[in-house]
């Protein structure tokens, strides 16, 4: 897709000011406690751009770690149920990698399966995603194996391409993207075909389709317990994953009022599937690792029509025992 505009490095601060003046919060990669995470940023100067990926996922902007889905009041025997107000704060996600932006497509497909998820949708309606094409990658990246790429447009409203002279080419991908440009129209100049920094080469030895085809016959294979021998079941991979949407529902209450909360959960946890009787359909870490891969590469494509993986590699980078997801997926794809 050809760029309509370009924006100079020196204009980013003015753009951020215009976004903030419009009442929107800006979330993006920022330095915090010795690492790069996704969080609120108030100026372009705070935007971290040298990393391949921040450690956390931007999904929290639309699917928070903990969110209120119901509240109720108790007065003696009486109970009144209240719908929590819809989240209203408009958000700009600035500086995401295209793979992470693409993750919102899978996330939305899961959460809207069958019945719409008004909480997620309300946030997405008010969220504009500005991604920056990748000119660097690392050994954990495999977006090209799962249908993505360093400048893949899915899930982004604006896509920025870094220019050799500094600043960016700007590709407008949606009305929301166009509305963002309109907040600071004098900062966007017509694109002039300036030289771009070369896109990162992301190499992978497999294609997702190969995994999808392998998985049904590998269900009972020892590969799952072998690959997960190191797995601690900590769930970090799920928490940083742009497409992991599994959740728990828990109440917090005192004698007079309560809230029902939706909280991130993970298939890596034993408690995730534990029955009240003590029986557990996924008793071992191997069975739980199998669920992770089967869900993302087999059940989701078949049932929802989307892959549950964007190849960002955040899972590998976050894993405290260095499970290499790309390597494991390669092994599964090449299994014969």
């Amino acid at each position: 897709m050809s760029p309509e505009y370009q924006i100079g490095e020196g204009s980013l601060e003015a753009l951020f000011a215009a976004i903030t003046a419009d009442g929107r919060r800006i979330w993006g990669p920022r330095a915090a406690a010795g690492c790069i995470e996704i969080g609120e940023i108030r100026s372009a100067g705070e935007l971290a751009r040298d990393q391949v990926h921040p450690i956390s996922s931007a999904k929290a902007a639309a699917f928070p770690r903990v969110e209120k889905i119901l509240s109720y009041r108790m007065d003696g025997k009486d109970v009144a149920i209240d719908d929590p107000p819809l989240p209203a704060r408009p958000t700009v996600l600035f500086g995401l990698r295209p793979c992470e932006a693409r993750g919102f497509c899978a996330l939305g497909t899961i959460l809207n399966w069958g019945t719409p998820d008004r909480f997620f949708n309300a946030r997405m309606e008010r969220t504009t995603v500005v991604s920056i094409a990748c000119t660097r990658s690392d050994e954990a990246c495999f977006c090209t194996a799962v249908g993505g790429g360093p400048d893949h447009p899915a899930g982004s409203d604006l896509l920025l391409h870094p220019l050799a002279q500094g600043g960016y080419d700007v590709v407008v991908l949606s009305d929301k993207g166009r509305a963002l440009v309109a907040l600071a129209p004098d900062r966007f100049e017509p694109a002039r075909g300036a030289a771009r920094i070369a896109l990162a080469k992301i190499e992978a030895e497999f294609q997702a389709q190969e995994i999808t085809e392998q998985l049904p016959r590998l269900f009972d294979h020892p590969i799952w317990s072998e690959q997960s021998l190191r797995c601690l079941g900590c769930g970090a991979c799920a928490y940083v994953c742009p497409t992991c949407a599994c959740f728990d529902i828990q109440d917090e209450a005192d004698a007079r009022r309560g809230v029902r909360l939706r909280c991130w959960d993970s298939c890596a946890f034993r408690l995730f599937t534990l029955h009240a009787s003590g029986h557990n359909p996924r008793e071992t870490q191997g069975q739980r690792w199998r669920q992770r891969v089967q869900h993302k590469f087999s059940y989701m494509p078949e049932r929802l029509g989307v892959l549950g993986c964007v190849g960002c590699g955040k899972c590998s980078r976050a894993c405290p025992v260095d499970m290499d997801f790309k390597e494991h997926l390669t092994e599964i794809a090449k299994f014969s």
Partner: protein
Amino acid sequence: MMEKVTMLASDTASPASAQANVFKPYLMRIARTTDEAPGVRTFRLEFVDGAEGARFNFRTGQFGLYSAFGAGESTFCIASSPTRKGYIECTFREMGRVTSALADCEVGDFVGFRGPYGNTFPIDEWKGKSLIFVAGGIALPPLRSVIWNCLDRRDWFGDIIVVYGARTVKDLVYKQELEEWDRRQDMKLVVTVDPGGESPDWKGKVGFVPHVVEALAPPSEEAVAVVCGPPIMIKLSLPVLEKLGFVKDAIYTTLENRMKCGLGKCGRCNTGKSYVCKDGPVYTLKELETLPSEY
């Protein structure tokens, strides 16, 4: 595989503000409680909002999420029959935080209910057939909905047989209804307790459910078997039924995996690619055999 290039929320048919909160339960009032067995209670629940109650419909075999306000939600089947209007019933065992809080509730207290979710026993397809129900312990509640549904349209079916077992006499649920079913001339009830579980005045059978079914040898021709119980009971009953000539698509069961949402989103109830909350909980043995044993 087609992928949406721009974001989804704007692609959904209606704005979020017009979408219902799918997690909002109906407010229900406990109209009756019955102590069934140690730690096991039945609630009859009525809709506080009569108009909601009038609109509410469910099919036999479906389930819901029940709220104890202040504690949380728990998943149980609807144990009453859709032929009995104006209320739903659930039976649960006191096990954790939510079921303990529910067990503390009394007549007149409010609880929440959302549902109905899941598929149904296809009783329309069973017209003209004989039915045998095989249940163990706390697994009679899901079959109770079907049994009453079928008894309430008794002329649709041939013989109706219920085989029900529990570890001990004390653990049998629905004792009053068991007496009622025992008195009925248009059905046969066989109640059994595990060896050692009988009381001095016990008049029923002593023995494990699969053995009792085998000895009873119900005819399998033009018949359907519905089985629900602890995993071991199901595992041992299925071969017995097959030996008696029941084919795999004439044997039904209902699964109860852990669930949080009931809507196919929270990610835990699937067994292989099948979501128990959406595709189940009712499966034929033929369907179950295509799935991994993740239940």
